[in-house]
C-alpha cells in the first residue's frame, strides 16, 4: 500500500512544473501542459484509490479521465479563434 502512496506523491509533484508552465507559456503550449496534467491527475486519483483501498474512489479517476478529455477539447476549440 505504501508503494501506491509513494507513486501518487511523486506523480503529484510532477504536476507542479506543469501548472507553472501553463500559467507562463503561450496559450497553445499551456493547453499541451493542461492535457498532460489531466492525465497525471487521473493517474494520481487511481493510485490514491488503490492506496487507501476505497474501491468507489476509482470512479473519480474514471470521471476525471472523461472530463479532462472534454475540457481539453473545449479549450482546443476556443483556442482556434477566440482565445
Amino acid at each position: 500500500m505504501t508503494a501506491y502512496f509513494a507513486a501518487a506523491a511523486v506523480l503529484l509533484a510532477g504536476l507542479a512544473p506543469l501548472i507553472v508552465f501553463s500559467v507562463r507559456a503561450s496559450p497553445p503550449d499551456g493547453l499541451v501542459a493542461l492535457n498532460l496534467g489531466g492525465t497525471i491527475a487521473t493517474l494520481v486519483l487511481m493510485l490514491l484509490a488503490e492506496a487507501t483501498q476505497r474501491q468507489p474512489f476509482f470512479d473519480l479517476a474514471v470521471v476525471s479521465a472523461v472530463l479532462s478529455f472534454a475540457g481539453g477539447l473545449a479549450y482546443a476549440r476556443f483556442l482556434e479563434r477566440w482565445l
Partner: protein
Amino acid sequence: MTAAIVWALLVLGVAAPLLGVVGVLVGADVYDRLHFIGPGSIFGPAALALAIVIDEGPFSQAGLKSIVVAVLLLGLSPVLVSATARAAYVRERGSLALPSTPAETPPE
C-alpha cells in the same frame, strides 16, 4: 516475485508521465511538445493498471475500473493531441489550408 513485478510496473508507470513532463518543459514548440504526451498517456496508465490488476485480480472492482481508466486514457489522449495540434495550426495560420505551392513549370 509478484511484489517485485508490481514495484517495477509502478516505477514504469510513474517514470513515463514524468519524462513526458520534462519533454513538455523543454520542447521547442507546441508540435514538438505534443509528442511528449504520448508516453505518459500510453505507458503510464497501462503499467499502473497492470500493477493494480496483479495486486487485486482482473475481475475485482479495482482491477476492472483501473482497466477502464487505462483504456479511456489510451483511446482519448490521441484524439486530444490531434485536436490540440489542429487548434494550434489554425491559430497560427488562420485556417487548415496548406500553404500554397508554386505551380510546376512544364519541362522544356
